[in-house]
């Protein structure tokens, strides 16, 4: 099926934010928005659900803590207990105070790295990945909104977008 998209380019973040609200009120469908910097409140205006990355980070942190506890318990208490400096390794609990620094470090290590890897995978960021912003100016000072025009009158939609303050409008016809 042929699909049509309109690329409306705005030159200001406040204009864009206002336009997003108007476009959604008029029941047009916004495909994607490309901005050069994080526009405060845009994710809510577009209707994106909050990200769950912070929760994953918490889970990864717990994983890191468990790895640290299991590792040090196995190495220092189970596998080869030694009497170092008159401080014998009889049980995990009595030895734990000197394990705390590494328990902390591994928690942070796992939480930070695995969260960033999750972020890169979810947002499909990787070396040699081709950029997908349709206009190079969207990393500089332009804000591009993709509006789905497939089942709409292109003339009306164009005029509507002009009225929301778009500086440029392009029709992309995917046949």
């Amino acid at each position, binding site marked *: 099926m042929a699909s049509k998209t309109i690329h409306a380019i705005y030159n*200001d*973040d*406040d*204009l864009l*934010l*206002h336009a997003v609200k108007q476009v959604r009120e008029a029941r047009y469908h916004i495909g*994607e*928005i*490309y*901005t*050069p*910097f*994080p*526009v*405060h409140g*845009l*994710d809510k205006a*577009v209707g*994106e659900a*909050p990200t769950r*990355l*912070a929760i994953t*980070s918490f889970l990864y*942190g717990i994983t890191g803590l468990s790895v640290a506890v299991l590792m*040090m318990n196995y190495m*220092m208490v189970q*596998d080869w207990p030694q009497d170092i400096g008159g*401080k014998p390794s009889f049980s995990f609990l009595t030895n734990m105070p000197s394990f705390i*620094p*590494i328990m902390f*470090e*591994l928690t*942070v*290590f796992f*939480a*930070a790295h695995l*969260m*960033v890897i999750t*972020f890169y995978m*979810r*947002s*499909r*960021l*990787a*070396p*040699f*990945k081709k*950029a*997908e*912003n349709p206009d190079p*100016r*969207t*990393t*500089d*000072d*332009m804000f591009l909104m993709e509006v789905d025009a497939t089942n709409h009158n292109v003339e009306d939609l164009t005029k509507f977008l*002009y009225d929301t303050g778009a*500086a*440029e*409008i392009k029709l992309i016809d995917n046949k």
Partner: protein
Amino acid sequence: MSSHYEAPIREPLVTGEKTYHDISVEVGAPVLGRANKTWYIVFTLALIAFLWGLGCIIYTVSTGIGVWGLNKTIGWAWDITNFVWWVGIGHAGTLISAVLLLFRQKWRMAVNRSAEAMTIFAVVQAGLFPIIHMGRPWLAYWVLPIPNQFGSLWVNFNSPLLWDVFAISTYLSVSLVFWWTGLLPDFAMLRDRTTNEFQKKIYGILSFGWSGRVKDWQRFEEVSLVLAGLATPLVLSVHTIVSFDFATSVVPGWHSTIFPPYFVAGAIFSGFAMVQTLLIIMRKVVNLQDYITLLHIEYMNKVILLTGGIVSVAYITEFFIGWYSGTSYENYTYLSFGAATGPYAWAFWALIICNFVVPLTLWVKKLRRNILWTFIVALVINIGMWFERFDIIVIDLSKGRTPSSWAMFSPTFVDIGVFIGTIGFFFVLFLLYARTFPVIAQAEVKTILKSSGEYYKNLRAKHGDDVAHHVDNDPTAKEPSANIEGKKDFFGDTSTEKEPGSEHVPTVNADALGLTEAQKDRLDAMLARIGTYNPKLESADNLQKLNGVGPLLEQHLHQVGIYKYDQVANLTKDDYILLDEVIENFPIIENRGDWNTQATELKNK
């Protein structure tokens, strides 16, 4: 409309009349333009120092640690001093990017990128010293908990030296991903701005295909916040653990419970001094005084005052407790009457003067806002903090509990060479970074432009807090679009409030250059001669192909209305004199060559 209000009493963080596009151009300029002579001279010096240090490291490893000045009594000296010094310097970067993010301090955005770069490069230097000190660095992997041929004799998790391994490597790797994640949108900006195919490819790879979707930005901000939350306790833990190397021992002067907070404060103190040293030079060299302003320097000086105060209190406490304990050997610790009058008195007084006395001058506002004085104080603190670690290690070891083993330490040329080498290595990395990386987090700075930019602050002062904050439809900002006609002013564009007397050629935006009316009239006359640029019918040429033109000069040429090779080809001698007058740093004839012929050739290509 979201509010961009910020209390007018706050000084602007971005000076000059900036648009979003200006920020891209000015941050991209040092990368996309060419390096100047000073850069090459400094880089060569740093490289020589680095190679000298490399030679000393090779000598140390191939001959043995005996080539250092260590002796039976003083088994740690310059190596660990340098290690602690470099780790400490690293702390400022994380403090700026993480702690100041949690506190929502906007001024961090201009300095965080370089401060984090400094962190990473400094920690790399720090990591070198313990590895060299092992004597057999190829066995460095023995510090990792991996199964081995000794019946799996595991590493000792009770040892602060092993905690260091985990702390430093976590710190280095987490700082690196924090830094890199923040760099993605800025690499993407360079990728999309450069016209050079090779640069486009490289920055395309480095930017990981960043496209700037709404969801990407939402995740980006969340990740930054959580990383900041993780990095804040991490940075505090790192120097705490470094101080454990000393505090958990039984050496007089080392066995001290105030070491962790005191080391952390000292680390931030020295780190900010290093940030000042680097940025005061860098802002000048790469023309970023509008972003790293006097205000930023003053803010950093205030952090130096605070942490310097904490360190001073710690010194006084150590001195008092040493005396109050009444124990004889406490009279020889690094902060004691014995140290102040003994053979290491010069090191003791260097510490007191550099870290305690000189920074006190920053209480005076005039001196805090004086760039030259700030630079001097920063250098003095760098030296002082090196002496602090030297004093802790060498003075404390030199006079232990047994007077028969008292000894002095003198460094050999290898000790000194390795230290100088790491300074060289650090500057090699930093100079390469300053030429190839966006040194300011431009995407973040754009988010505060409307609240903290000078232009918008003045706009609010003039028209009230509810004024529309739209970026003007600046004809110089980009090649104007052909379909801009018919655009409706939805919110009352501020560009309609043009000052009277702007009946000049419309493609000229000379206001940004701060010209007089007479000069503007002369520009009009020039354009009448060489031809004007009509954005509706033609597209602009790439003026950077001309000799001596970088992104900044190209923007200035656009500001005076020159967009086409045709126009350049028609320039006369008088026009060059005019351009030299109105454009700052206009290249002299020796550097630009004959633009008229160059433009004619480019035009006919």
